[in-house]
């Protein structure tokens, strides 16, 4: 299995959410491609030393989100249909959470909309400049 997961069980972020985030990230980055098999629940639980029901919960949610499918007895796979779309959705899910927490932090520190927008524009210019 090509996915490398880093779970921090001591973090306050629920483990199943950490798993979901990392699998979405792997799909978005093309580390996991359409039709590719995920580790079994058992394998991932043993590899990461975490509870198997927690892994199963993450897989169930990913299935609900349409990112993976589980064939009984054969394991879980990245969904073959619309893999590009899945990747984009997965990518924007991860990015949205990060952006939202950045905006919340700006607000908490007393910045107004204009100030946050300015920071956002600067970040866009630096990391995602318009192609000339």
């Amino acid at each position, binding site marked *: 299995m090509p996915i490398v997961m880093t779970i921090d069980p001591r973090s306050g972020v629920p483990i199943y959410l950490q798993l979901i985030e990392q699998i979405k990230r792997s799909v978005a980055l093309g580390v996991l491609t359409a039709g590719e098999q995920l580790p079994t629940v058992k394998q991932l639980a043993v590899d990461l*030393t975490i509870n198997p029901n*927690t892994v199963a919960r993450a897989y169930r949610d990913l299935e609900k989100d349409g990112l993976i499918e589980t064939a009984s007895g054969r394991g879980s796979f990245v969904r073959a249909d619309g893999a590009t779309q899945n990747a984009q959705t997965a990518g924007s899910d991860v990015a949205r959470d990060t952006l939202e927490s950045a905006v919340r932090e700006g607000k*908490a520190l007393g910045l107004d909309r204009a100030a946050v927008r300015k920071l956002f524009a600067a970040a866009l210019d630096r990391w995602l400049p318009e192609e000339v």
Partner: protein
Amino acid sequence: MSSISIQQLTKTYGPFAAVSDLTLDIPDGCVFGLLGPNGAGKTTTFKCMLGMARSTSGTTLFNGAPLVPASFESIAYVPERSVLYDWMTIAEHVQMTRHAFKAFDVARCKELLALFSLNEKQRVRSLSKGMKTAVAVAIAFARRAQTLILDEPTTGLDPINQREVLNLIINEATRGTTIVFSSHQIGQVERAAERIAILARGRLILEGAVDDLKADRKIVDGILPADDTPLAAFSTDPRVARADRNGRIVRLVVIADADGVATALSAAGAQGVRILDLNLEDIFINAVAPASSTADVVEV
């Protein structure tokens, strides 16, 4: 199938209640962590569940039925204190156990003893406390039981063997075994357990899925406009378990809807409102410690 239902369990010793009105449901195939300060009633709970101490009132059902002697074929128990005989060797204990239980897996037991670097020829007398724990764990896991009750299964073990026990618990869990264990090593519980209960002074004070507790319970803090900004609304808010303040700094322990509480705190004029995640150790301390003891946290 192996579900456990503890119903209104009470155990008193004279005027002292070691366990009070404890009700817990442990689903089939669940790894359930029992946490609590020393003297919280964890060991008494295990003993009452297994009929090794007589409950003052209440019952425990395994798969919906009370324990009968035959139930012990499918339940393996590692007690907090070693019940091994000093004058016997490890191999003799293995022999004794294999004769008592049909499903006992001798080959697996040898593997497990080797995993903990134990020599079967050694007498219990010559073993350290941690080695005795390891022997008890190896024998219990070789029982191939459907239910494992483990009272502090890592006591005295070095960090490497502690991790081995954790791996064994997770391995058993992938086979669908129901496991109830107590531990002061919160990091282990955080990894292995799907659900936890926290006991204090014999009472259940918190129960739930570890991931749900982490998702729901947060710290919301912020800076109030003045030393005397009223906070009464928060101390009666059902979403807020606790409100601590130190001058202008306020710190709320939130048990649900942290986003909503953060918005309300901002609306009350607070600045720099943050939502902070809590790990299991934080959740444990916040649940068990008296309100004043975390006052130091707000002194930034």
